[in-house]
């Protein structure tokens, strides 16, 4: 772990990603604890003001401090992206590895289902799922996880197909090792590198998808301070007070790009062919 981080640090893109994700992590931990104002306190004397010393990000239509709302919203938004990706990646990887290792008709059926899911755009799929099972933050997380799982499964499966052919798996089969050991010990750790890379990049998609769902009213509900929701609420004032959209939008962009860069860095660092 420490080795991977040092290697990422010496990788130009990886270093940018590390800095950005490190910043995200700080936001995640300390964001909701240190807002300068109560994010839900109305201030009728200062509605829709621009940047000032008192309110660096300005205020919204109810006079609430935007900086405080962005800071508090960070935990929801980042947590949302990471959690949904984590679930989707774990489930997808498990399906892909098992399907790839056993092959045959089982693999054929699982993968055709995955293909069908991949054919539907992620946003559409997660919207459909949320509408089907009910609007809530938890369901939105589940919906995004489900929409991610098939493509992760494909990545895991294609790597598994390669690993299955290696001599170390053959050696395990020759000595009569159990399927469980072969899948969990011999194959899974070798499949994890590309899956982690894919997953890290997907965190940024998940954050954007989550924000979109919230924007559409299918994710976080008012008065929560989710970034997508902030943009959604601000849209009627967009022309008069563009900062209301710009600051949460910028926050989403920074977080997404950060995870994306980290994923790109990991792709190089975890690739055994680039090693040494």
């Amino acid at each position: 772990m420490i080795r991977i981080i040092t290697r990422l640090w010496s990788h130009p893109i990886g270093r940018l990603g590390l800095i950005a994700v490190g910043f995200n992590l700080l936001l995640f931990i300390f964001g909701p604890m240190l807002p300068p104002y109560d994010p839900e306190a109305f201030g009728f004397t200062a509605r829709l003001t621009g940047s000032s010393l008192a309110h660096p990000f300005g205020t919204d239509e109810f006079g609430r401090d935007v900086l405080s709302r962005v800071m508090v919203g960070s935990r929801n938004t980042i947590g949302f992206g990471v959690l949904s990706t984590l679930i989707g990646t774990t489930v997808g990887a498990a399906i892909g590895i098992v399907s790839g290792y056993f092959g045959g008709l089982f693999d054929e059926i699982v993968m055709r289902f995955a293909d069908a899911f991949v054919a539907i755009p992620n946003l559409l799929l997660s919207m459909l799922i949320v509408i089907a099972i009910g609007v809530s933050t938890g369901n939105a997380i589940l919906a995004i996880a489900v929409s991610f799982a098939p493509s992760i499964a494909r990545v895991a499966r294609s790597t598994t197909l390669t690993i299955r052919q290696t001599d170390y798996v053959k050696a395990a089969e020759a000595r009569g090792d159990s399927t469980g050991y072969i899948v969990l010990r011999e194959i899974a750790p070798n499949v994890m590198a590309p899956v982690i890379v894919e997953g890290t990049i997907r965190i940024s998609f998940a954050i954007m998808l989550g924000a979109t769902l919230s924007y559409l009213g299918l994710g976080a509900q008012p008065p929560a301070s989710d970034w997508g929701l902030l943009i959604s609420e601000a849209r009627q004032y967009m022309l008069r007070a563009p900062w209301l959209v710009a600051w949460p939008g910028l926050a989403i962009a920074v977080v997404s790009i950060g995870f994306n860069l980290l994923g790109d860095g990991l792709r190089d660092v975890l690739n055994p062919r680039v090693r040494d």
Partner: protein
Amino acid sequence: MTDLLTVENLTVDFETGDGTVRALDNVDIRVGPGEAVAIVGESGSGKSTLAYAILQYLAQNGRKVAGTVRLEGRDLSRLTRPELHMLRGAEMSVVSQDPATSFNPTLSVGRQVEEAIRVHTRLSGTALRVRALEFLRKVGLPDAETMMDKYPHQLSGGEKQRALIAAAIATGPKLLIMDEPTTALDVTTAAALVALLKDLKRSLGVAILYITHDLGIMAQIADRAYVMKQGAVVEEGTVEQIVTAPRHPYTQRLLASVPDPEAADGAEHRSAAGGDTPLLEVRDLKVSYPMRVKSGPFHWGASRLVQAVHNINLKVGRGETVGLIGESGSGKSTIARALVGLNAFNGEIALEGNFRHGREALDAAYRRDVQMIFQHPDLSLNPRIRIAELIGRPLKLQGGVSRTEINAKVAEIMRLVQLSPDLLNRFTYQLSGGQKQRVAIARAFITRPKLVICDEITSGLDVTVQKSIMELLGSLQSQFGTSYLFITHDINLIRSVANRIYTMYFGEIVEGRILENPSLPAPYHPYTEVLVKSALPPRRALTGSIETIKGELPSRLSPPRGCVFASRCPRRIGPVCDQTAPDLLPRGEQIGIRCLIETAELRRLPTL
């Protein structure tokens, strides 16, 4: 006489993650016009770096610290990029190790050979094609016209390498740099290529800088040689002087490590032949696999069963070393995989007289007693599992062994294979190639198996490492009485250790014999003879001529009706060879030879 190529105190550094590494250290070499000079060394000696430094084509992280490279007096480092472009390919050409990746798979071979010529000669149209055809014929590709229209995947490895050589020499270069051009090829294919290069050197007067780890090939092809170790030249001299009277201790050690049946120095470990009941007996083993045959408008086609090996009968005695030799496509690895239950098979496998039919019958007891060591430890050892678990796993699988017992046994076997106990918690990518193979050996031996199958286990290793691995296997054998089934293409290696040798060609055993010493007296199969004469050890390569055979393996889809070796056999007796399939018949004290030539005639052949 002025030299064609002079390299003077060339020093090259590489920047790596762990600091600066000196790849070449004050290297001086020279190549005269029309001279063949070999650069020999083991992996990491810097011999390939030298080739690329001469071409002014170092890797991104490489840096020339000092020294000059001159071609006909011109300092190559002073040339501009376009000048270098014109020089590479026109005045010095390079042929690299792997013919498989040197061609673009989407263009025909003819296009690519023509392109290489066109860039440097400005020929075009018919003249270009004529030149390409001329050189394809010169490199021994008989059917050059059809060859031109083929795509790289339709050519064998040897044919590709020849086509590359054709492209390299068609521009009339003065120097040909070859980086291990025969390493990826079978021994008979390599021998034919070496013969071709000697021929070209004579007829075209082109100088050759030949980079190799193989001292036998060096002795055949080169006039002079430089021996490299860790980036420095440790010895230079004529090939004869280097082979017969090496001065530097490293050269001496290198030569002593090359398996040479004639130089039996008493250090060989041929175990005593086993008793009457064999440990392993294989009867009528047959392995087939489905192959899709293209037919019909959409190439739907049906699968057809193709035989990989058939009629395999062999025995391994207790404590014996048995060699199974042959080139790629002979089916030797197929047999190994069937024996450890990785391939389904027909026929019987008996361990200690217990006959088992088919793969399902290979039970846990059998799997404990029969272990396999794979060719590439890089591929057979999981990179994400620590060494302690890698080695201990087969024992754990047996069940009924406590954790402390396993740890004790792992520690013991680590000591036996001479691995430091510090390595227990490491991963294999932190180890050298030889150490990795020792881990694989330790894993095979932890269950104290009765038979260990070694599938080309030394072929990826340097000769000095190979020697130490062979010594280790010998000492483990004398300690535990283990039998080995040694699968290899290296007949010189196996001759000095085996009690029994089976030679395979195209899925059949063509000869089986019992050995008491490394000499192979007549009668023998013509293919065994070809194998021996294709890979001469350095000392014999100086004087002996290499035997080369033409042609390729027959097709699996239409296997020959007669003798499988008939199409390439140098001792072919006539059309009867194509029509009658010979049986594996005992000739004198031999286990059997599958050949139509009369025993009396085979007996008259000289001892190999």
